[in-house]
């Protein structure tokens, strides 16, 4: 486990969120506070419907909270940011790994991995092949995602998420669709990234994955149940 910086990568205070469907408002998050330091690996666990994914979407700037005192991501206050500003911050500072891999089916594995770099206008040469080699997909670079196994697809998705060395990696059930061997491989990659200083926030149901984390937070009914999140340790 790597030493963490005191710099906060995530600083959320009094976060509330509610969904409104057909005029009915359903509160999901109730005044959450969350601090994650640079280089920290935080796992969030909890039953379905407790608000984990909503929280991750807010941290990933894909969902604007209904109300909050502060949502600072990668050193930037995001409350009041426009859609374009949040999109640019996502592109610059965040990486995502999804349960369903979410690779673009129309382009090759290498093109998928290179896409975040291209969107930033950063050079691709050398970076993508090296990363594909690291995740064991060097020989599959030219294939379309559908030609890969699910484990390979998730490794490709992980490569895409970290190719820009994002300040914060958000992972939503990254092993949820994988068998145990592939899940172990993905977790091993995540652990390696963490060892290199990558800040990671991961949602999972898998208790075994949680043992690799610096901290595990449990959620229930839109609240952390471990006490003050910033101080809870495994």
């Amino acid at each position: 486990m790597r030493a963490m910086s005191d710099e906060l990568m995530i600083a959320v205070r009094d976060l509330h969120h509610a969904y409104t469907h057909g005029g009915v408002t359903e509160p999901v998050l109730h005044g959450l506070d969350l601090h994650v330091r640079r280089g920290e690996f935080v796992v969030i666990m909890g039953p379905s419907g407790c608000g984990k994914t909503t929280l991750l979407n807010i941290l990933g700037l894909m969902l604007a909270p209904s109300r909050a005192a502060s949502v600072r991501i990668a050193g930037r206050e995001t409350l009041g940011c426009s859609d374009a500003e949040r999109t640019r911050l996502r592109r610059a500072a965040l990486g995502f790994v999804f349960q369903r891999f979410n690779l673009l089916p129309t382009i090759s594995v290498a093109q998928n991995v290179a896409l975040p770099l291209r969107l930033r206008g950063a050079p691709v040469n050398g970076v993508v092949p090296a990363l594909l080699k690291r995740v064991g997909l060097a020989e599959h670079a030219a294939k379309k995602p559908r030609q890969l196994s699910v484990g390979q697809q998730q490794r490709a998705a992980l490569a895409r998420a970290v190719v820009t060395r994002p300040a914060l990696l958000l992972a939503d059930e990254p092993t949820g669709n994988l068998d145990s061997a592939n899940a172990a491989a993905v977790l091993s990659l995540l652990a390696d990234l963490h060892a290199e200083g990558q800040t990671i926030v991961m949602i999972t149901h898998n208790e075994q994955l949680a043992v690799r984390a610096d901290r595990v937070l449990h959620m229930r009914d839109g609240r952390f149940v471990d006490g003050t999140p910033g101080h809870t340790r495994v």
Partner: protein
Amino acid sequence: MTAPAAPAYHAAMLALAWANLMHHKLRAALSALAVGTGLMLMLVSRGLATGSIREVNQRMQSVAAELVVLPAQDNIIFTSGAPFRGLHEQHLRGTADAEGPLAAAVIPIFFGQVRLGGQQQRLFGIDPAQLDLFLGGRRVIAGRLFDRAVGFAARVDAGEPRPPESDPAAYDAFLADGLELVIDERLQRVGGYRVGDTVQLLGRVFRIVGVVETGVAGRVLAPLQTLRELTVAGERHASMYFLKLRPGLDPVGAAEAFQRRMGETARVELKSEYGRLLRESFASVDLYMTASSGVALATCFLFILLTMHTMVIERTREIGILKALGVTRLGLVRLSLCEALLISLAGVAIGITLAVAVRGLLGAVVPLLTVELTGGQLLAALTLGVLGGTLSALYPGWRAARLDPAAALLYE
């Protein structure tokens, strides 16, 4: 946080657009084909109109005259009959200034119809004595001109009495020298005619006596007096006149003088304005053709819109992925625009190729039709393609841009 380097970003989006289209090859190809078909319709109909008008105008300009006299209210393309009488010709001949008659030559033309070369042709009745003016220097390349008809015309103009109706044989003999046709080289080539061939016309058998170079105002020429004899009992009627002015006269001033003399029965125009008159006469048909091809084209672009819209719905989750990766709303609109423009540009290429092919096909099947494909028309097709593609992509792009990324990622 800096904006991405534009070339790499745009190259990535273009590559993504291309990949998306290649992922739905058949749909993209059908969309491009639809645009291409619409553009082909537009190009061919416009090309047919402008080509025919230009060709007729160029032929009319070959006549050695400066003015044309046309029926006042008539459409010069779809005109029929011979509304001018001998009195009108007298007015034209009699219009004068202090130095004498303004017209060095009044050239009456009598229109008829004949089917030659596989299609209806306008038959130009021309006085054999004025054929040189009408030909405007074009050469005879086979046979001869109206040599025998000259005598017939002279007899008619001299007022020689016609044989009585009770004696058909005598009337046939009277007409015989006048039953001559001269055709142009293009019609001769297309129809495979030779000097000496006969053609049934107005109940009589005419003989092709000569072939002149292409470019003469009329493709089929017959003696004016013969047509008058067969259709208006020899009255000095005419469908229009060409006027060759006395040397040194200002054509505009002369036209005004002739117009005053003719009053409201005719309009006197500069021959150089004949192209404009043709376009004006064709305007209503042109509007119809333009509207028809415009509707066809708009339908084709609706096809693109539908395609793009369907693609947005089908790719909702992919759009969510792109948003998660940091593609802006504007970027998604651009992606949609890129895809639609690629389809449209392919459609333009298909449309131009089809138009060239149809022109070739028409040239083989109906060789006397002229389909003109100018650089300007091709540029207009390209512009329309780009404009239509852009408009077709805006709504789907807007829909894609407005998708909520978190919800889009959950789309099944």
